[in-house]
C-alpha cells in the first residue's frame, strides 16, 4: 500500500511539473488530465470512491474538455514567437517564485502535523451513503447555498453569452 502511494505521489508530481514545463499547451492539458487521474487514485487509496469518480467526471470529463476546446480554437503554441520569453520576465518569475517558496517554508516550518486515530477511524466514511447523509443533514445549508451559487453562475454565463449588439440585456 505504501509503495503504491509513493508511486502515485511521484507520478502526480511528475505530471504536475510537466503541465508547467511543456511548451505545447495541448500537451499541458493532457498532463493535467493525467494529474487528475492520479489524484483520483489517491482518493481511492483513501477509500473515498465517490470523490474519485466525481473528480474524474467533473474535472477530467467536463472542465478539461472545455479547456481543450478553448486552446484548440485559439491555436496557441503554433507560432514560435509566442514561446519566447524576455529576460525580464524570466528574472521577475524567478524572484516571485523564490519569494513564494520562502513564504511557504516560513508557514510550514512550525506547522503541526496532525496524527490520525487508528482505533476510532471509520474506514467507510468516504462511501457514497455516508457522504450523502452528512451532506444532507449536518451540512445542508452550505450545500444548498453552493447549489444556489452554481445556479447564479450558470444564469450569468447564459446572460453574458447572449449579449450581442442591439440585443437587450435581460
Amino acid at each position: 500500500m505504501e509503495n503504491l502511494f509513493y508511486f502515485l505521489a511521484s507520478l502526480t508530481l511528475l505530471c504536475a511539473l510537466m503541465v508547467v514545463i511543456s511548451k505545447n499547451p495541448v500537451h499541458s492539458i493532457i498532463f493535467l488530465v493525467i494529474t487528475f487521474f492520479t489524484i483520483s487514485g489517491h482518493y481511492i487509496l483513501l477509500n473515498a470512491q465517490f470523490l474519485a469518480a466525481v473528480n474524474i467526471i467533473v474535472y477530467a470529463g467536463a472542465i478539461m474538455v472545455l479547456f481543450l476546446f478553448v486552446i484548440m480554437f485559439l491555436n496557441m503554441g503554433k507560432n514560435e514567437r509566442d514561446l519566447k520569453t524576455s529576460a525580464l520576465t524570466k528574472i521577475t518569475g524567478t524572484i516571485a517564485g523564490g519569494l513564494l517558496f520562502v513564504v511557504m517554508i516560513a508557514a510550514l516550518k512550525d506547522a503541526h502535523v496532525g496524527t490520525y486515530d487508528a482505533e476510532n477511524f471509520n474506514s467507510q466514511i468516504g462511501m457514497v451513503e455516508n457522504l450523502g447523509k452528512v451532506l444532507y443533514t449536518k451540512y445542508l445549508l452550505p450545500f444548498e447555498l453552493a447549489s444556489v451559487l452554481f445556479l447564479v453562475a450558470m444564469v450569468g454565463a447564459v446572460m453574458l453569452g447572449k449579449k450581442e449588439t442591439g440585443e437587450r440585456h435581460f
Partner: protein
Amino acid sequence: MESVDLIYKAIYILVIFGITLLIATYSTYFERKIAAFIQDRVGPNRAGPAGLLQPLADAGKLFFKEDFIPTKANKALFIIGPGIAMLVATMSSAVIPFGDMLIVGGREIWLQAIEVNIGVLYVFGVVSLGVYGLMIGGWASNNKFSLLGAIRAASQNISYELAMGLSLIAVLMMTGSLSLREIAEQQQGFNWNIWYQPLGFLIFLVCAFAECNRTPFDLPESEAELIGGYHTEYGSMKLGMYLFAEYINIFVASAVMSTLYFGAYNFPFMENLRAAISDPVLANNVVTILGVIVMFAKIFAFIFFFMWVRWTLPRFRYDQLMKLGWQILIPLAILNVVLTGGAILLKDYLF
C-alpha cells in the same frame, strides 16, 4: 484477496475483453448484412460461408495498408488519439454484471469483473472521457476540417451527456443505489425498471445513440454533406481503431441499457425455475447460466435496434440536434426526475 480469486478475476476480465472484441468485430458484419436485408440486397457473401470471414478480411486489409501520418501533424498525439478512443471504449464493461453468481465446488463466483458501490458513476465517468480520443485525434491531424469535425463531435457528446445523467438520476432515486449489481438484483423476475421509467428509458436511449455517434446523430462523421469529421486524415488501422471503438461503444451502451432498464440477467419465472429444481446448487447454476444467455440476448436485441434505426431514419441537421438535446431532452429529463420523486412520495403516503 486470495490468489485463486485473483486468477479467476484475471481470466474473467480477459474473457469479457475477448467477447467485447469479438462482438464488435462481428457487429461490422451484421451491420452490413442487416443493411443488405433492409435494402433488399445480398450483402457480403464472398469471404467464407455466407461471408462470415468478411470482418477478418477487413481487419487484414486495414492492418496491411500504409500507415500514413501527415507531415505537419503532431505525431505523438496523432498516434495516441485512436488508442485513447479504444482504451476508453473497452474500460466501461468492467462494472457491468453479465450474470449472477455461479457456485463451483462450494466457491461463489460472481460474473462481474469489479463490484464497486459507484458503478453507475464509473460508467458515466468513462463515457465522459470518450471525448478525448476524438478531440486529440482531430486536433493532432493539423487539418482545419478535422478540427471542426472534432469540435462538432465533442459538443454533441458533451450536450447529450447532461440529459443522460439526468435520466439516470431517476433510476438511482428508485433503486437507492449506485451499484450496478444491486440495481440488477432489484429487478428480480419481471420487475424491470422499464415499467416504472419509460420516459427515462426513452431519453437514455436517444442519448446513447448520440453518445455512440450513430444515425440519426452521426454528424461527427457525416461523410456525404460535411467532411468526414475528426478522422479525415486517418487511414489504415488507426481509422480502424476509431471505427472499432464505436462498435465497442454500441455494445457497452446496449449492456448498460439492459442492466439499468431491462432487468440485466433477470428473466420472467426465474424463481419458479429455481424452485422446480430440487438441488439448490444445480438450481442456482442453471438459473445463472440462463440469466447470462438472457443478458446477451437483450444486448444483441439492442445492437440490432441500433442497426435497424441506422437504415430507417435520416440524419438530423446540426441545429436540430443541439435543440433536441438542450431544449427538449434536458427539460424532459428534469420533469422525469420530479415525477419520479413525486411518485415515490405518493407511494410512501398511500401504502
